[in-house]
């Protein structure tokens, strides 16, 4: 095992950048995105998988050495998520499942309670469960106890590209939970991916920011570099941040002088 390995579901991953497979102008772009991003884990919406179509079946465009992470996008409750997960397995998508339960089409925020319920059921069925959630420590702990392989808090509402708006909450999760914390959703720029990695996130998942870039392939590489840089910085230990500069002649220096003059 290499020194800084991320292991999920028994697989040692070579990249800490996870990518999506939706929103691209064409599925045929996926191999190039995978190549330039160096990503190994690719998430796929089960609802979009069309096994009956040779050309439009996106699974045919995902390189064979990738780890498929089917997601339950479209599920509105735990029961639907569980059904979609089983369907993914039956389709031959493997055992990984990103649970995505959204019952709010306005802000598209995940439903933590239903996600937890689905996590409990699917972990028992032997899935490698990666729940997508609103960052909330207690629920994340329960997900861990229920057998989640990692937890995936959002950085900002999905598709908004607003960055790591939930930083404080994600930070607490990283400190308190002994599972990989993968920041999913909201990351809009490579610098924000680096920020998440510097914080100690195990990985980030990026879809919209790559897919909606002018040059999606170029952006995929930019994210790859940013994730590596962020990880390196985390391992190197970033220096403490001072809120204000230290004055060259200390403002309280007179106290010491007063003592010595006595």
């Amino acid at each position, binding site marked *: 095992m290499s020194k800084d390995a991320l292991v999920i579901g028994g697989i040692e991953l070579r990249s800490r950048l996870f990518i999506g497979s*939706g*929103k*691209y*102008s*064409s*599925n045929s772009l996926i191999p190039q995105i995978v190549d330039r991003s160096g990503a190994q884990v690719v998430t796929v919406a*089960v*609802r*979009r*998988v*069309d096994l*009956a*179509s040779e050309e*439009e079946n996106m699974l045919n465009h995902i390189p064979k050495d990738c780890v498929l992470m089917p997601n339950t996008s*479209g599920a*509105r409750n735990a029961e*639907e998520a569980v*059904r*979609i997960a089983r*369907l993914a397995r039956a389709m031959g998508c493997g055992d990984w499942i990103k649970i995505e339960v959204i*019952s*709010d*089409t*306005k802000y*598209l925020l995940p439903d933590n309670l239903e996600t937890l319920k689905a996590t409990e059921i699917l972990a028992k069925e032997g899935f490698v469960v990666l729940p997508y959630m609103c960052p909330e420590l207690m629920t994340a702990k329960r997900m861990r106890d229920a057998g989640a392989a990692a937890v995936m808090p959002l950085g900002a509402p999905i*598709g*908004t*590209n607003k960055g790591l708006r939930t930083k404080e909450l994600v930070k607490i999760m990283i400190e308190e939970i002994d599972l990989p914390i993968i920041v999913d959703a909201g990351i809009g720029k490579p610098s924000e991916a680096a920020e998440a990695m510097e914080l100690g996130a195990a990985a980030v998942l990026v879809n*919209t920011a790559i*897919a*909606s870039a002018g040059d999606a392939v170029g952006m995929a590489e930019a994210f790859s570099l940013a994730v590596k840089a962020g990880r390196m910085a985390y391992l190197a230990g970033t220096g403490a941040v001072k809120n204000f500069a230290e004055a060259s002649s200390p403002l309280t220096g007179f106290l010491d002088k007063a003592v010595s003059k006595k």
Partner: protein
Amino acid sequence: MSFYDVLQKYDKNVVMQKIQSVKAEDVTRVLAKESYSPEDYMVLISPAASVYLEEMARKAQQITLQHFGRSVVLYAPLYLANYCVNNCLYCGFNVHNKIERRKLGLKELVAEAKSLSSTGIRHILLLTGESKKHSPVEYIKDCVKVVSEFFSSVSIEVYPLEEEEYRLLVENGVDGLTIYQEVYDEKVYEIMHPGGPKRDFKFRLETPERGCKSGMRSVGVGALMGLADWRSEAFFTALHAYYLTNKYPEVDISLSIPRMRPHAGSFEVPSPVDDRAFVQILLAARLFLRHVGITISTREKSYFRDNLIGLGVTKMSAGSATEVGGYVEKRGDGQFEISDDRSVEEIRQMLYSKGFQPVFKDWQYI
């Protein structure tokens, strides 16, 4: 409280006055915002905003890209029967129109479904006219079971049903409901619907809500643009979608902007909607309702449709036949004339050439 009660709170004349009196500064102020209220939406469909179409288009494009990506979901309608007891002045299937009435038998339906699914289409919309005698709910249910074998998502656009009836269809594989109010101005509605059960404005208006309660995954609303002044119609349609998204956040609400076209019989469109107006409605809807799907049918011309892609459209029909049995044999007596007669393959290629992915499958019955 249903949407009917919400509608009662609005005086159409006051709404029109507000829309007419919007000034340029109001438009620039609203355009700078990130989320919009119904009042802001009035600003966006005002005459003052009509000179800001380019700015609106840029914003709409960005929102669409963020939320839906470079993809458009394709679907096709499948007409089951054209028997109809209603008398909608604008419709080719109207009870007084002398057209051949047909209804697909289940075997014929299999042939239609096979023919349509061989084009790659995976999402279909089943349609019938209103006839409890010829197309009762049981018949629709049987049809749903047949087509579920061929398609991954089945929606219906049939006469208004009761919640229980919708639930029965949902249990048998329907996941989407489309029901247009046609016109939100109750007085105009009365004129346009002189006979038949469709005269009941309130029952129809509350239909999308019954669909939401029955467990439908997606519910689409719309007004037939051209029947009454488009600005107020656009306002009430969007308000309806807004009401539904707030009350039923678990349901995917979508919006459609069907525009009047020629048809069998003679009907003069009372308030025609030109292309600029159409685009303004579309853009304003995208800004106001950012997550709401917007559907565009083959009533629109190909050149026009192609240029709307990316501006807010998330779903479009392709290779459509609007007559009963039209996928096996075309006769030319459809509900409305198709302005974009390209095949599914041609639409697919067009989307790719514009840098968009045609999505054939976006749902699967689970």
